[in-house]
């Protein structure tokens, strides 16, 4: 054993940590200097035009590109970006090109918190366009509003986006409750007398949908309510027990508030036990191309699109398969050119139309683009935006939802044909359901080329 030298009261290695702290500080410093210029200083109203120059608009968003929520959802933001690229190729908006940064939060709110700060504090985005998810965006909504960053068209049907405390936040798709009401009314009017069963995801999505169904479907007709949790483990176990319970309860109509994977599992479980109820599926889990792929991969090719025949769902965007709809034709062309290889399905349609709706807002905000101009444009002109959808936008200073309604449709030919069963309907969370006389809009003649 060595003895410490008398002038060293303390073993040498005790100084190691001091150096380590300094080294660590340098690493942090180096990391920070390499991560580029810092963006806005926070919270000041003077930041109204952050991310806007005479030639560019910086936008960003968070969305799952990897992880369990990614399949399908990872098409949405790139499809919106494809529309922005199309606009850029045609001169941009008021000569400004749109630059859209898409960050992968894996549907994990902790990542959303960090990545959103990266976009706002470091990259200095003008607006967060199309962030996906309820818990993820909830995690950052107050931060975004405190920074005054418009959070435009959150990709979630939560009832929570029309919130006076979140003045810069807007929804886009119909709240799940509204859709539940419309599907529920159809069941009561056209499938009356049949026993009804529910299978829904045991979270806000499913529960909000059931809130809407419960407003329209008499409780005495509902014979069974089954739930599942959207964890990979729960889905791997299948939905056999829930489907058996629905069959035993004698449900002739089964309403699914399910994500696509769960819709496919439910249909396969029913097919396995020879159970063929009338399916009524939330639009969230009823995209035919997605379901066809899932049905065939889950059943290893034994089942497929045929299971979709007759299924009832709701739609607020034009039918994917409608080759006569000039919007659909144009958007397909845009997607093929600017996001080559992306499939044309419900997710990419959603993304490309959401991108279109954002460009509408930019145009309405005018040449002197500021954050408050954007918010006011949506509040005051949003209801009259050019709108490829089936129902009008309900944007107003007191209403930050986008679509509130849709039509009930039925899938035939394995989802190749989508037939409307009802007129186009609009509603609110607690109001009546009414037909809309809003005329469908048409795009410019050369749209998409």
């Amino acid at each position, binding site marked *: 054993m060595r003895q410490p030298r008398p002038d060293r009261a303390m073993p040498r290695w005790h100084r190691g940590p001091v150096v380590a702290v300094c080294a660590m500080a340098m690493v942090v410093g180096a990391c920070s200097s390499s991560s580029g210029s810092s963006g*806005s200083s926070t919270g000041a109203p003077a930041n109204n035009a952050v991310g806007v120059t005479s030639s560019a608009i910086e936008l960003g968003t968070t969305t799952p590109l990897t992880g369990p929520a990614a399949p399908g959802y990872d098409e949405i933001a790139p499809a919106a970006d494809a529309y922005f690229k199309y606009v850029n190729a045609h001169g941009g908006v008021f000569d400004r090109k749109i630059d859209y940064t898409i960050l992968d939060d894996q549907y994990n709110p902790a990542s959303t918190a960090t990545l959103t700060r990266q976009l706002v*504090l*470091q990259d200095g985005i003008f607006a967060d366009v199309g962030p996906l998810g309820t818990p993820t965006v909830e*995690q950052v909504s107050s931060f975004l509003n405190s920074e005054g960053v418009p959070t435009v068209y959150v990709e979630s049907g939560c009832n929570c986006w029309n919130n006076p405390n979140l003045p810069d936040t807007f929804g886009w798709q119909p709240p799940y409750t509204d859709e539940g009401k419309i599907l529920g009314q159809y069941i009561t009017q056209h499938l009356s007398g049949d026993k009804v069963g529910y299978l829904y995801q045991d979270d806000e999505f499913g529960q909000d949908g059931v809130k809407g169904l419960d407003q329209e479907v008499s409780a005495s007709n509902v014979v069974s309510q089954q739930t599942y949790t959207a964890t990979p483990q729960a889905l791997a176990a299948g939905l056999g027990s829930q489907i058996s319970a629905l069959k035993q309860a004698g449900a002739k109509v089964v309403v699914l508030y399910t994500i696509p994977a769960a819709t496919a599992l439910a249909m396969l479980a029913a097919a396995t036990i020879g159970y063929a109820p009338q399916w009524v599926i939330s639009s969230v889990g009823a995209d035919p191309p997605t379901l066809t792929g899932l049905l065939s991969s889950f059943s290893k090719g034994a089942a497929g699109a045929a299971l979709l025949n007759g299924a009832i769902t709701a739609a607020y965007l034009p039918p994917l398969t409608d080759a006569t709809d000039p919007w659909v034709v144009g958007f397909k062309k845009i997607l093929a050119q600017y996001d080559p290889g992306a499939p044309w399905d419900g997710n990419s349609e959603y993304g490309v139309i959401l991108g279109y709706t954002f460009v509408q807002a930019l145009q309405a905000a005018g040449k002197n683009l500021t954050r408050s101009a954007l918010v006011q444009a949506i509040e005051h002109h949003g209801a009259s935006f050019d709108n490829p959808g089936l129902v009008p936008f309900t944007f107003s200073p007191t209403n930050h939802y986008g679509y509130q309604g849709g039509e009930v449709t039925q899938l035939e030919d394995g989802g190749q044909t989508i037939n409307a069963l009802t007129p186009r309907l609009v509603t609110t969370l607690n109001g009546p359901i009414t037909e809309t006389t809003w005329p469908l809009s048409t795009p410019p003649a050369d749209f998409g080329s």
Partner: protein
Amino acid sequence: MRHLRLPRQPMLRHLVLALGGALVLFAVTSAVGPYDDYQIGQIGIDAVAIAGLTLLTGTNGQISLGQGAFIMVGAYGAGMLLVHTKLPIALALLLGVVISAAAGALIGLPASRLRGPYLAGMTLALAVGLPAIPVEFAGVFGGEQGLNVNPPVPPAGIDPQRWLTWIVLVAVLVMLVLLGNLVRSRFGRAFRAVRDDEVAAAISGIAVAHTRVTAFAVSAAAAGLAGGLLGLSTGGVVPDAFSVGLSISLLAGMVLGGTGRVLGAWWGAVILVYVPQWSASVSDGLGLRQGQSSNLALLFYGLVLIVVILVAPDGIQGRLVHLWSLVTRRSTPRPGGGAVDPDRAPASHSEDHETREALA
């Protein structure tokens, strides 16, 4: 250099180190932009959570896959107090720590009877199960939407993000000083004695089960502080943020930084915060399609973790301590002695283990 000497007395030494660290961090946070301030705050939060874990696993020998669950307890504890009461932030954070420590003691009771894989299984179950509680009792905990925690209002002229980061760092340094002292105290010696040989510890008069429960509570207290700070700095507490993945990544951070080394917690935290970002920017630079590049980022992240483990099996801090000892040895050559002293060989550092574990 020869005159740079730290006090021998642990409390004093830890205070001097914390003060030095605080000065460095003050300088760095004042020099960078708000996003970097946020990141440094996240590093501090991860570091205190990892420090708690390293005390439990490294010092006391109990493996926990459930550190994320205690972070969640602290986040909800402090978050609910901040939302529903007008308590000052420091008190809310403190109570969050107390609540989390109590939860840790409660979980520690059954855990003290379990060993190895069974303990890992139990803590894993905790990490999986606990996030379901706020969803189940949505009326109390706000369900999946969780809680919105309002950020503190900074004094005039100070950037709100920087202010938040300072609050985080002060709390973290205080906790680390306390942890460092604990490790060097009678409790810390008991933790290590129980880790090394329970029978011997019992014969020496150490209450083994009691010690294991205490370690759990202390570890949970650190996690609870991390949770309270996380809610404060992100502005919200949602159950999905406390997934199993969080617990696992903290475990990875602990191993990468150096198991059992409080200072290593900082390295682990730096890796957890910066490497995913770095790998995302590297893969983005390759010009691939969105989906491909984000999957590639995960691959890069994994590769970095593997490389670090291969290069530094005793963690970054372990490697640094070893390198430092080589450097200092070379600078003071001894008559007849080589650069490597068998007593100081990297594999057998148990001799200085005790002191090195302390907060540096």
